[in-house]
């Protein structure tokens, strides 16, 4: 019994205090980011204190922690799996500008002009299609987000409620890309046509499920790729690629140095690593099949997931979206039964 207590006490003390060289908050799934962090540790000989987020917590976890810790920052580097919340942190004055030399080859559209954040390894907002339900003839497949308003798909298409995550960012970006009036009309048109689900994962599962009526849904490329790996009969459509069309929304990972973080030098080294070609390549090859924003980096293996030069991305202003995200989130909450 005494030995057991001693062991517990030793473990407790060991768990209580461990010195670190740099602290990283990661919103990208632990399954993909953890191995990369360990690789950085091996290469740099720096010890990384890494904190992961959960999908369940959405933005409540790490972003809230960074905001709440602003009087005494603990985080050195924030690696977000999307962009809007990172931009928002920059607008709140919680980030430090840093133009990483490792990101020199990243197109300027994926970097903040003031150096507050660097974008890399993106996910596209695509239509996941059940190929058994819709058949092999691709001309019969939906091709645009406008198809969610088409009565012929009523009850057969799904979107996650735009209250958090990439769907919120996507809807917020659509609000500015389409204009207020056209966006409002689109929302009205899809309101009763679409089955509103909890998350992109749920839309993917419902589409893949042979017993579900859902034939296609809006989701992210990483969720689509999981369905593909599991052997489901699914295909991907990069929407709105027609001449004059809106284009496909692309949401990159983003990395930023937190203002006032305890280890600024190590933070920059870590940002250099995360924004490197090597990491983009590894993320493209991983289960999440992220799309490299550098055309020089090899993209995902799957032919369904197009390379950065193979489709037309939607143009959106991350700063504009981030500035209005709180207000739009409240509006969507009223409409879709969530926040206000």
């Amino acid at each position: 019994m005494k030995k057991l207590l001693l062991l517990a006490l030793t473990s407790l003390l060991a768990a209580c205090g461990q010195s670190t060289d740099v602290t990283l908050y990661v919103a990208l799934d632990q399954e993909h980011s953890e191995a990369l962090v360990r690789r950085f540790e091996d290469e740099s000989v720096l010890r990384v204190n890494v904190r992961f987020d959960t999908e369940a917590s959405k933005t409540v976890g790490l972003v809230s922690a960074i905001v709440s810790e602003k009087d005494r920052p603990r985080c050195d580097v924030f690696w977000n799996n999307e962009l809007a919340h990172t931009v928002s942190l920059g607008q709140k004055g919680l980030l430090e500008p840093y133009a990483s030399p490792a990101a020199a080859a990243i197109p300027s559209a994926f970097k903040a002009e003031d150096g507050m954040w660097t974008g890399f390894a993106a996910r596209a907002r695509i239509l996941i299609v059940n190929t058994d339900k819709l058949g092999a003839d691709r001309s019969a497949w939906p091709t645009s987000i406008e198809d969610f308003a088409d009565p012929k798909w009523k009850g057969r298409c799904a979107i996650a409620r735009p209250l958090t995550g990439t769907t919120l960012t996507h809807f917020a970006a659509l609000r500015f890309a389409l204009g207020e009036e056209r966006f409002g009309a689109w929302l009205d048109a899809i309101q009763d046509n679409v089955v509103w689900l909890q998350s992109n994962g749920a839309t993917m599962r419902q589409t893949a499920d042979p017993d579900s009526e859902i034939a296609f849904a809006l989701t992210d490329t990483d969720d689509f790729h999981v369905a593909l790996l599991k052997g489901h009969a699914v295909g991907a459509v990069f929407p709105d690629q027609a001449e004059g069309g809106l284009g496909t929304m692309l949401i990159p990972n983003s990395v930023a140095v937190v203002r006032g973080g305890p280890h600024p030098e190590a933070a920059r080294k870590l940002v250099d690593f995360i924004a490197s070609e090597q990491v983009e390549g590894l993320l493209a090859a991983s289960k999440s099949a992220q799309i490299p924003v550098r055309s020089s980096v090899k993209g995902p293996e799957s032919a369904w997931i197009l390379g950065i030069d193979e489709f037309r991305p939607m143009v959106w202003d991350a700063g504009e979206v981030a500035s209005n995200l709180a207000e739009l989130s409240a509006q969507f909450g009223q409409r879709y039964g969530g926040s206000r």
Partner: protein
Amino acid sequence: MDRFRDVLARLPLALAVGFGVLCVVLPLGAMLSETVYGPDGFTLEPWATILATDVDRQQILASVGLGVVAVAVAIVFGFGHAWLTTATDLPGARVLGPLGIAPLVIPPILVAMGFADFAPASGFWFCALLLGTSYAPFVAVMTARGLRAVDGRGYEAAMLSRGRGPAERLLLRSILPEIVAGCLFAFLFVISEHGVPEFLTVKGKAWHTYAEGVFGRWTRRATGVAHEDIVSPIVAAVPLIVITALALFVALRFRAHSALRSDFRPLPVRALGVWRFPALVLPATYLTCGVGVPIFVMLRWAMGSTQTREPMSVDILRRSFRGAIEQSGDDLSYTLLLALLTTAILLAVSIPAARVAARRFPAIDHLAVLPVAVPAVLLAIGFVKVFNSPAAGAVYDAVGYDLYDSMGVVGCAYAARFLPFGVLTLSQAVRRLPRSAEDAALLSGRSSLACGLRIHLPALAPAIWSVACLAFVLAARELDVAVVLPAGNDTVVRRLSNIVHFGGEDAGGALALILLVAVTSLPILTVLLTGRKLRPLS
């Protein structure tokens, strides 16, 4: 020497008060102060938004409705299970009894996800059934606690003089404080649950709960810069606190009275007669819904039910377990250690607080419920504000130990969150103890500490063990606090949540099963090692 003894005697209570101030009053106070101090000074403007829209009002009604129906389910399962396994000669009661706590181990969101894989699962009634079953252990634990604390002589006297009906009614009245407390806990957890109602949105869900609404507001706080955005989720929690206060007001109308005496006799074990085996249907149904179905869906996951590349097989099951252990072995030991730490802190705080609540300041019962009345995220962010403040930083620098970055702060946050389980359960138990022994001890010059150690602790041992088991199980599955506090990062439930989200249901199912076995082994081992002395459901 006397002075030292006085100080020592007051130390447990002083520590409990200190904990209450540091881990409940200050964090919640810090969050409250945010709502009333805007950029232009004092303001009550955000408070005007509370329940201001039809959507909010519909959601709060939906939450209360869900809570009431789920509690009804919890009473059927929890009360029935406790009654049959504690007070009757049900076959296998000794084994079935401690299993009653098991449904609490697996987070209901995983059960909902797993269930949805093989059967249509959606809507209000399914949600109420699922949550009612998941939180029925609160009613089971508290009911069993009450049944074991009732003096059997009163019941026997009523039976002899007035017959079975009045005797049963008398018994029911005697254990009503515990049943109501269990229902209160179940109700609070159901109305603050946002994940399950949100998940069950599948196909045309037309209702949303208030907790879903509050959770969604955190996005506004994270992205907004206006004061109204930042405090939105905090003021939105006020209706939940009001509902809790009302529920608590009702619950505390039923306070336990002294029952234990030196010649105390436990309730007679009643013979079920011809119903002995048919009565197994209720515990069997409860454990099937609360434990069997989760185990079944997790096993299906672990055997590869969510992929179509190869048929489900034992080989995949083996791979899933291997993957789960490789990924999460350290997290599992960290979680169990954290659960033990939480349990230790909770007991250290609850025992002195409950003694004072029972004998001198009943208002402590009300105050103790506050941490569970607010959303867990709100309490956790309050913790960040207090334990990562510049003042706290100066203390850490001075003592050379950073509490904020340690398991200690997570243990404290969990213990604060679960405070009502400790204080309410133990204060009801203390009220059942006769005052005569304490009075005699104090009159003979014994200190309050000696009185607590020699008189209260031995008599409270079964109740303390109930609290310990509940705290251990709840700490092992807590997620909302863990996602905000950095040191909560290494818990199994957080990893489980991540694994399952990204299509890792196979390893996730295996990990959930490992967690279930690891956590339920504590109450089951207790029964095996201590026999009848300590029962987790007592």
